[in-house]
């Protein structure tokens, strides 16, 4: 078994190209950008949502709203500690809008379920679409993404880290294996 602690699976250029492709797919699927609202799941979905929104704006030459959503109050899989709340800011009514929900990694699907429940408390969107940078499999709920940056087969024990910073060149996605790498259970 590999003893490597972390392996880089995407670099800054690959992430940038994936975001550009997702932006084009969103525009193509929705026949333009009219009525789109981007909502990032706190915390890692927020910078990604901003990048995708900015890319769509640049292509279409329009201004589009960007919101943030904290799903802590809707979770069914609390960790060992209660999560501390961070801002939820939905800048407009979602009724009749097409919401592009954005998260960094799609894994069990439980965060997305929580986010769907939360979003509907802000109105009745015409549609909700899901964009993720990485789909790592292991779904526990019937959830799928509409836009995927990269499909990444993983073991359940591994951790996928998406690092988006102020400098896009330093962006990367890494897989961190548990110490010693004993494989999947």
């Amino acid at each position, binding site marked *: 078994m590999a003893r490597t602690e972390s392996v880089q699976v995407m670099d800054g250029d690959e992430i940038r190209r994936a975001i550009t492709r997702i932006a084009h797919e969103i525009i193509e699927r929705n026949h333009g950008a009219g009525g789109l609202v981007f909502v990032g799941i706190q915390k890692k979905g927020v910078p990604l949502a901003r990048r995708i929104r900015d890319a769509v704006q640049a292509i279409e030459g329009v201004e589009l709203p960007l919101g943030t959503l*904290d799903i*802590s*109050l*809707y979770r069914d899989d*609390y*960790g*060992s*500690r*209660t999560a*501390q*709340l*961070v*801002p*939820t*800011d939905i800048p407009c*009514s979602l009724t009749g809008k097409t919401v592009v929900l954005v998260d960094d990694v799609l894994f069990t699907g439980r965060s997305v379920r929580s986010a769907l*429940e*939360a979003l509907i*408390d*802000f*109105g009745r969107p015409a549609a909700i679409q899901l964009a993720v940078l990485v789909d790592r499999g292991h779904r526990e709920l019937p959830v799928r993404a509409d836009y995927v940056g990269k499909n990444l087969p993983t073991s359940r024990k591994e951790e996928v880290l998406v690092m988006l910073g102020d400098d896009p060149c330093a962006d990367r996605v890494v897989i961190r294996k548990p110490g010693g790498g004993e494989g999947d259970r």
Partner: protein
Amino acid sequence: MSALNRNILALREMSPEEIQLILDQAQEMKEILSRPIKKVPTLRGKSVVTLFFENSTRTRMSFEMAAKTLSADVTGFSASTSSLAKGESLKDTILTLNAMKADAFVIRHSASGAAHFIARHTSARVINAGDGTHEHPTQGLLDMLTIRQHKGTLRGLTVAIVGDIAHSRVARSNVWGLTKMGARVRLVGPRTLLPADVERLPVEVYTDLRRGLSGCDVVNILRIQMERQDAGLFPSVREYAQTFGVDRSVLREARPDVLVMHPGPMNRGIEITPDVADGEFSVVTEQVTNGVAVRMALLYLLLGGSNDAAGH
């Protein structure tokens, strides 16, 4: 485990970090109250029992609204219609309610220390909603949240608390909370209404209203309790209003961006004039909204998370 592994009995017992956490979480909770659907499923299946052995409308309703917004089930208990009227002791009442598997008790009682007493006899979480003349921690927290929203911070501010300090649990919770968070507190009132142990509190004492308000950032005006007059603690309501009632003229002593607060219920025309109560400096209605947010934050921090949070 929940984020705050403790009961909320007195701000004197809490650390600045814990207070900071509660205020931060309350700030986020406030957003929920402005949503089209003011309900989140977080505390589904948790039960909160409100035990009010003393009359209250706003505190009790505020706790109930907070619990219901978080989807907890709330059962009310009022002393006048309960078995207490048949002579059941407080301890037996608690043991009975405890056996019904409540997750949290919210208690108001006329005896100082009642919430601590209950906490010793239950495995559920206990929140003090006012005990005698001791503390009213949730009022202290909502006052601090209101100040922080307007001033950005509590550190370095001067807060004057005016009126019947001796009998005020609100004053005590404010003194402990504010000083822990780095504010300076002045107690302003007639000597007869200052607590006997005032020199042991971390405060400055003023018996002259004008001097007490001079240069302060916040004025928190307490309700004068009419029944105190019978005890001879001040000569007449009219004289109290003239010497310690806060009106526009005396408010000019304070900073030009002063905040005027009152925990309610107000005696308009006695401790506060109506034009000050409704004026541009008043944040009284914001205090009420913040009260719901603070209580939501506490219930979330105490009961949220995995199911062993309540200890059974």
